[in-house]
């Protein structure tokens, strides 16, 4: 039997087509992150409303923003509101992380577990560096020693803690879009 004849014989053994249930079953088993359907549209709506009112106030009292009491009050309310929304979202993210069996790696090696603090804060003990806290809302940026040193993407949170690289892997996606991670060393 020649090589070509053998090939011809082998070609007679055809595999069946995969069943439709293969794709559908896989799709059903795909882990989905919870979708944010409320907070983001509300935040945009409120921002537009505040801007409209502020512009109306400015039109009557002059162009200097800092001296305008209407603007100052609305700006304060807006900041508080956005902060509340961000903190709430960050708390939601923290809860999802907590329920997703997070595994902590420091420089690629398994490290201890996460500790959960108040205000959506999470703590991780980094060998030789101390305990580092991190949050996922941006309003802490530049305040109280919080520095953006990493990102949360899908099911993975990565950030720099001193000279060490921390990677936290969850067993399901936590966010739809990337978010910054703010870190500070606990005193």
């Amino acid at each position, binding site marked *: *039997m020649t*090589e070509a*004849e*053998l*090939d011809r*014989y*082998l070609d*007679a*053994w*055809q*595999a*069946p087509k*995969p*069943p439709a*249930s*293969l*794709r559908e*079953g*896989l*799709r059903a*088993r*795909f*882990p*989905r*992150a919870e979708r944010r359907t409320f907070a983001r549209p509300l935040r945009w709506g409120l921002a537009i409303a505040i801007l409209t009112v502020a512009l109306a106030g400015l039109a009557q009292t002059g162009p200097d923003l800092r001296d305008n009491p209407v603007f100052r009050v609305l700006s304060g309310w807006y900041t508080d509101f956005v902060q509340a929304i961000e903190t709430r979202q960050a708390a939601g993210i923290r809860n999802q992380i907590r329920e997703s*069996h997070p*595994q902590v790696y420091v420089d690629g090696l398994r490290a201890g577990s996460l500790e959960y603090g108040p205000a959506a804060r999470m703590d991780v003990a980094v060998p030789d560096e101390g305990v580092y806290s991190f949050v996922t809302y941006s309003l802490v940026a530049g305040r109280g020693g919080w520095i953006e040193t990493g990102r949360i*993407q*899908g*099911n*993975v949170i990565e950030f720099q803690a001193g000279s060490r690289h921390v990677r936290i*892997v*969850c*067993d*399901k*996606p936590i*966010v*739809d*879009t*990337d978010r910054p991670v703010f870190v500070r060393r606990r005193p």
Partner: protein
Amino acid sequence: MANSDEQLIRDVRRGKEQAFLRLFDQHHLPLFRFAWRLTGSMADAEDIVQECFLSLLRPDCGFDPKRTAVRTYLFGAVRNQSLKGLRRCEQGEIPDRADRHTPETEALQNEMAETVGKAIAALPAAQREVLLLAHYEQLPLAEIAEITGSEITAVKSRLQRARATLRETLAAYAPRRERTI
């Protein structure tokens, strides 16, 4: 291709279902064929292929798209899952290839296909997987070596031995077949 796969994997790991389905659509056919030929079972092949795609989402997944092509990783995963299943069969944990000889499959396969399938199933596992990847999936020897975790020379010699055995096995069948064609 490598870059687009890398991007797809990144999106998949961010939880994007569309990216996951695109990845599946690009790769599932050869993987299913390979799994089916290794296990001889539609149900097992379906389970194995699903598990392999889902393994990409697991936190302990060691796949790095910068080092390995996703196709190579998935073929390796199918191979490992199939071997695990076959080992369980050998240890008597689950019945061997339950739907291999159903009337349905026997009706679907003609005599020649069945003979070839049986001859390939009778090969040693290491030779069988190399033959399936080389002949049916047309993968280059270097990629087969990566999938099976072997040297290229070992892959080449297993392929030669597999083909020699098949030539011998099928030779007995060939003259009979030639007369009927």
